[in-house]
């Protein structure tokens, strides 16, 4: 067995925006998976919004994610057989919300895709797909959004637009945002930067308020 994360202690406040940085293999993704309840720690505790994730079983974790966590992936991970609207509605449908499609439509409108509701992922550009993914991550208004290199597969301009949107929406809903990125400038836009190396936190600092406010 390989211990990927070692002796990590990290507390993130509600509504805080944290940039998670570090070289490949430093443990960024593993940390994010622990926070999202996608993997279980071999030791230690993970609490999100007061909930100890260790006591939840597989389906309990799925419900926890459904109600509390939105995830944005580098590769978008939209379901190819579903339209943009259906993709966005999916978490709300899982949560049994009757207004799933109204919420999804509003979400897509918020990311500027109200004209793309019935398009399938294959009919959308990369930037549009990531905006759909963004709308999907936020459709249930989660308390925590995890974003794993959300601009990694996008060109510079599109990436900037997506990030602006992500920050705006997070601020609007008061959502806690944890953002993995290789982009130093992007990390600096967060409230706080946590740097990992070899499974340990090697730096944890607040960014300049001015930039964070941008």
């Amino acid at each position: 067995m390989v211990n990927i994360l070692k002796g990590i202690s990290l507390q993130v406040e509600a509504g805080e925006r944290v940039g998670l940085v570090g070289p490949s293999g430093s443990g960024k993704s593993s940390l994010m998976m622990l926070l999202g309840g996608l993997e279980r720690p071999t030791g230690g505790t993970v609490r999100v919004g007061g909930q100890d994730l260790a006591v939840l079983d597989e389906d309990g974790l799925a419900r926890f994610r459904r109600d509390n966590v939105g995830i944005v992936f580098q590769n978008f991970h939209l379901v190819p057989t579903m339209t943009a609207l259906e993709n966005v509605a999916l978490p709300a449908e899982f949560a049994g919300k009757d207004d799933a499609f109204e919420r999804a439509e509003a979400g897509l409108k918020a990311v500027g895709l109200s004209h793309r509701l019935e398009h399938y992922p294959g009919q959308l550009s990369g930037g549009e797909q990531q905006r759909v993914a963004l709308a999907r991550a936020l459709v249930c208004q989660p308390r925590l959004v995890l974003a794993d290199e959300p601009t990694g597969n996008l060109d510079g301009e599109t990436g900037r637009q997506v990030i602006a949107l992500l920050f705006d929406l997070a601020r609007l809903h008061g959502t806690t945002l944890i953002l993995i990125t290789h982009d130093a400038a992007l990390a600096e836009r967060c409230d706080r930067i946590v740097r990992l190396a070899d499974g340990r936190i090697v730096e944890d600092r607040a960014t300049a308020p001015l930039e964070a406010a941008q």
Partner: protein
Amino acid sequence: MKRFLPLVLARRELRAGARGFRILIACLALGVGTIASVQSLSRDILGGIEAQGRSLLGGDIAIRTIYHGVNADQLRTLEGYGTVSESVDLRGMARTADGLHSTLVEAKAVDPGYPLVGAVQFMAPAEGMKPAEVLAQKDGLWGAAVEQAALDRLGAHLGDRLQLGALAYEIRAVIAKEPDRIGTGGFNLGPRFLVALDSMPATGLMQPGSLTYYDTRILLKPGVTVEPTEKEIRRLYGDAGWRVSDSRDAAPEIRNFVTRLATFLTLVGLTALLVGGVGVGNAVKSYLDGRIGVIATMKCLGASGRLIAWTYLIQVMALSLVGIAIGVAAGAVAPLALSGVIADHFPVSVHISVHPLGLLLAAAYGALIALGFSLWPIGRARAVPAGTLFRDLVQPAGGRPDSAILLATGITLAALIGLLLATSGQLVFSAGFAAGAIVTFGVLGLAARLLAWLAKRAGRVDWIRRHPTLRLALANLTRPGAATVSVVLSLGLGLTILVTIAEVETDFRGEVERDIPAEAPAFFFLDIQHADRDAFFNTISAVPGVTRVETVPSLRGRIVAARGVPADKAVVDKRYAWVLGGDRGMTYAVTQPARSHLIAGKWWPADYRGPPEVSIAKEVALALGIKVGDELTFNIVGRDLKATVANVREIDWGGLGINFSLVFAPGFLEGAPQTEIATAYAPRSAEEGVERVVNQNYPGVTMIGVRDALATVDSLIGQIGTAVRLTAGVALAAGTLVLAGAIAAGERRRIYDAVVLKVLGATRATVMRAFLIEHGLLGLMAAAIAIALGSLAAWAVVVPVMDLHWRFSVGAAAGVAAIAAVVTLTFGMVGTLRALGRRSAPLLRNE
């Protein structure tokens, strides 16, 4: 109304189309189609038998007696119920006028009222004529109508005279269709020879003790119903030894035959479905492997494992329904397409209709197989961790599904077996099939795994490591997620059946051709008059070349009671209940017959003068649960005789000599009406001489050539072989579908391999060689398993069951290896050519 979310999601997922499910659909369509066709056809035939009951029976009620017909008093009573018609059935020899040719025929003598129901159809120029006109005596000569086969065997024509016993008949018509032929029951050894009842006494064939059946048929008067009349007849004449049957079940033998055939063919379909189930499982697994990203995404978004399982189960079952529907539709129209074949083989006009219950049964089998084989991969998909999305390498789902899925799989399997046992009507046979299928699948699966493991080990051998194409081929067969085991298993089943039947046939035919003739007599003679015995013996013994003649007295009778209990209530082992089925041959002897040995009791002394004693075959003892010292009651030509069991014999029935299951001590039966049975041993060159002498001197003696009888047995074996080959063929077709599915599923991998190899400098020929070796090895693995298991199965049939010599058949092994290699190489070649046709650049850019 609240939406059922799994249904909504399944419908969305189905938008991707049925591309990955074509094999699943084909597998189910093949198996369900086979079962649905069998169900429809058999129900049509059974329906035909039921609808034509009166015509098949020749009336509303039929009474069959042996040795003597109903007496005048009884006849008057029967005539009170309606119109009565009488006929006589017996076997005899038809001979050409010159006495040179003879053949065994099924003679039937009818009265002018025949047939009471339906019509006998004659071929031109006698078409439209009534039997009474054809058979009537004209200018002192009686007429006969025969089946074409009788004319063919004797080289005779319409208008010729043929001798039946002592009487010459003019052949006036060829029979095209005899309405009550199958209703008569029993199996037919020769073609029909139809004559007038009044002519029969002059043939001299109706001798006391010769096997003659008297049939009395009644067409009930209006207002008289079948059931109460039949009951009354049974009440009045229950103890007269009559076999009474009625039009509600006119042809029980055919009905039983069709029912058994339907069970067998349904099991053939089920075999195809089982093999197809492997294809279903592979298709579902391969599809779900491609959906791992979507499944993990849904889990990240909060979907529970349960929701995932339901979503994909609904999707798989929806697509399965497409395959099932195709199969059901094929089954519904099959009787239309096959009506010609039915008409050739079943003398019943079949009314073709749709049978919802039969089709439903086929659909239920298909649905249970689809469910049973897809639950496992769905269970694995359910366990796909959401975190998979964060890893670069998407591993196919593996491991064992959770207990809920295992339980559901178990329940499905139980339901499948339950359905089979509840609906087949042949409980033991079907249970045997179920057990056999489970064991066979288990053994094939283990053998396939063993070979895959060996292939993996072989990949590490130095010599192979130095041959990149071979190494690549072995690596492809043994990489994680390879479908090698399932392909070898599913192809292996059909091939194993092929090897088994080929070896059993070779061994059996070898026995028939080499071993039996050496010790078997050349002829059996039946119906020799007791008084003619010595003359017959001397005549035949004098024919040049004849080495030995044996004669044995023959009586017919039945066991009516065992230890005072009526025989039908005394049966303890139904497997041997046939010993009670009607009249059996019996004899008396001073010395113990050859080819039998005592397993209990003692043989009587040569000068035995005590009370009646009988020696019984082991089968009789087992049927009735009787032992030495017990009393049996027999009815021999109308008289009851009580005898004590003196001993029990085990008889070697394989030697083709004469042997009786019931042998009496001397002193009790010598005076009863009886005939003699004889055998003559002679080389082939002497056979014609024997035939001529018998034809000229003993027109009433029935002569059966062992060579002809063996040819009949051989053709029977051939028919069984054809039925088993049909099973193998259908199983092989299903196995080929599994192979095609595996090759289609591996297409992406093969294209990628081909591109990478080409980029690294491999020529197309090198790449092709590697792929062909891979598929050739796959075929050889399946063949190796089939040869090993098939030979083992053949040995198990040949040695312990048939008591013959087992020989390994090189021809069968080579044939099966060739079939396997051709199938795998052909499909492999198609896949390889597709892979090689791809250009490298686009793929590498995408990667």
